[in-house]
């Protein structure tokens, strides 16, 4: 089945007939299992949120309690005022993510278009070179990339880290966009040609609108990859004002005088999770479809 249909198909009668189904009355057992699984999966997230709205003292209480005795935004205030301030760290994360998105789309769209719609010589070889980032783990390249960044004056800059995140995300972007451009009906393209479009105009007026879902998916994934990436951010952003949100959490945990500030840490975790959660809940269809077409196949 086509991956893009997953979210819709998943619940439809057609899809359910495909799945191996049980024949007789084990439904209560399955229901109970589902509820148990959900409870286990949600427990950490709910407890994390619960800890974040405790008072700082209660969040560090031994033994701990599940639920807050009194509600407090103390922990969030602490994270807000942590060192350079939460707005700075959020700003850093958003800026790096925005640049990563721009690079993935800016480089990936034309490349995918060229490969999908032109008789490029040695096409599959070019494609393979562009996907080489899939074979080579970016983690291994961090030392040379760090030295390049330092010599180009890109250490502790948004662009420096965004380049690494693009190395990670560009192969997926090109792969997805190429598939999408290839699926665009020939008739649409021919209509454009008759109207006198050149290849740039065809891309702009015919192919980009047709590939809109793929572009949304590429954007989503570039954002989530960049927002969550840890190791490169740890290495490239070593100045306190340049930290992204995950690296800020390393600092928040250290706290003052060696004692871990548990409440602030969990408040920080909640803040770092929220954008991803929002994307997942609002754009689940794009997310799951991209996930299915990109992860394997």
């Amino acid at each position: 089945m086509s991956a893009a249909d997953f979210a819709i198909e998943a619940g439809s009668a057609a899809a359910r007939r495909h799945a191996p189904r049980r024949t007789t009355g084990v439904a209560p057992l399955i229901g109970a299992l589902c509820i148990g699984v959900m409870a286990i999966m949600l427990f950490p997230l709910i407890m994390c949120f619960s800890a974040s709205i405790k008072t700082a003292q209660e969040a560090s209480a031994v033994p701990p309690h599940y639920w807050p005795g009194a509600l407090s935004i103390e922990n969030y205030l602490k994270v807000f005022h942590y060192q350079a301030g939460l707005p700075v760290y959020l700003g850093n994360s958003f800026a790096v993510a925005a640049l990563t998105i721009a690079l993935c789309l800016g480089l990936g769209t034309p490349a995918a278009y060229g490969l999908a719609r032109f008789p490029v010589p040695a096409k599959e070889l070019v494609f393979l070179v562009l996907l080489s980032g899939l074979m080579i783990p970016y983690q291994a390249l961090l030392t040379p990339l760090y030295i390049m960044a330092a010599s180009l004056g890109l250490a502790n800059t948004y662009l420096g880290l965004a380049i690494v995140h693009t190395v990670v995300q560009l192969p997926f972007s090109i792969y997805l966009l190429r598939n999408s451009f290839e699926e665009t009906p020939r008739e649409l393209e021919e209509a454009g040609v008759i109207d006198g479009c050149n290849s740039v105009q065809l891309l702009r007026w015919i192919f980009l609108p047709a590939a809109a879902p793929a572009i949304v998916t590429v954007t989503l994934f570039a954002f989530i990859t960049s927002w969550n990436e840890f190791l490169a951010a740890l290495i490239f952003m070593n100045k306190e004002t340049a930290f992204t949100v995950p690296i800020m959490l390393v600092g928040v945990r250290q706290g003052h005088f060696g004692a871990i500030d548990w409440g602030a840490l969990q408040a920080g975790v909640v803040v770092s999770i929220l954008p991803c959660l929002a994307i997942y809940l609002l754009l689940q269809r794009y997310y799951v479809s991209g996930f299915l077409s990109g992860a394997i196949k």
Partner: protein
Amino acid sequence: MRTRSGTVGLLYATPALIFVGAFVLYPLVQLFLTSLTNASLLGGSDYIGWRNYLRAYRDETFWHALIFTCKYTLIITPILMILGYALALLTLGAARLGKLTRAVVFLPVVIGLGSSSFLWFWLFDEQVGLINKLLQDLHVIGQPIVWFVDANLGLWAVIISIVWKVVGFGMILFIAALQSINAEINEAALIDGASYWRRIAHIALPLTSRTILLTTLVSAIGSMLAFDQFYIMTAGGPESQTFTSLYWIYQNSFIYFKQGYGATLSVILMAIILIGSALQLLLMRRGGRT
């Protein structure tokens, strides 16, 4: 047609090709060249031939880290695959509730590995953590467990956190594979009176075997590159026992500033990973693009 020339197409791909050349292939060559030097991030670099490789061969911590990483991968991969498949079957078996369960199980896949590791680091803390509290409330344990002073307990704490974080990954891929099985095959088996478990064993498993294999590979490669979860939860301790390969590379390159040696270890790790990804690519090609 004028606009349909190969040169134009190549022109469109040029910016991306330059990017990949500059930031993937060139660093790759640099990495290899650096691995033959004693370069330090503090400055200075001399060619020393294969001495770093010999040193890696004798580096006990590196071997320990490599074996530890393999152990982690060998334990967690089957857990993830079996649980993922079980969850796929479970959620396909229940209509409404199944969809909701699916969405909930997949949720942690979206959040950052760093965030989830900080979350679980707290849950497993021996004093303020809720895992001990929960286990005590359920009378599973009497005294709080100190998870991170023991390498094995620490490993299991990390494994539990990662299973929670990524089990939805396999599940969603298995669901898609199971749904793509032709309905007629199942119906024919039903008419023949094949039981649920027989249909799983003789229809579902064989027909999704390619997905299972690919997911196993992708998952195992990811585990072989584990860093965040150990950096955050165990910090390599106790006594360097929970260093993963990548963590030891990071430690050498960026904490000890031994960039040349770190590059050597990177080359070795990459060679190991490459075997896995080559296999993956081969399988992907064979399956054909859709």
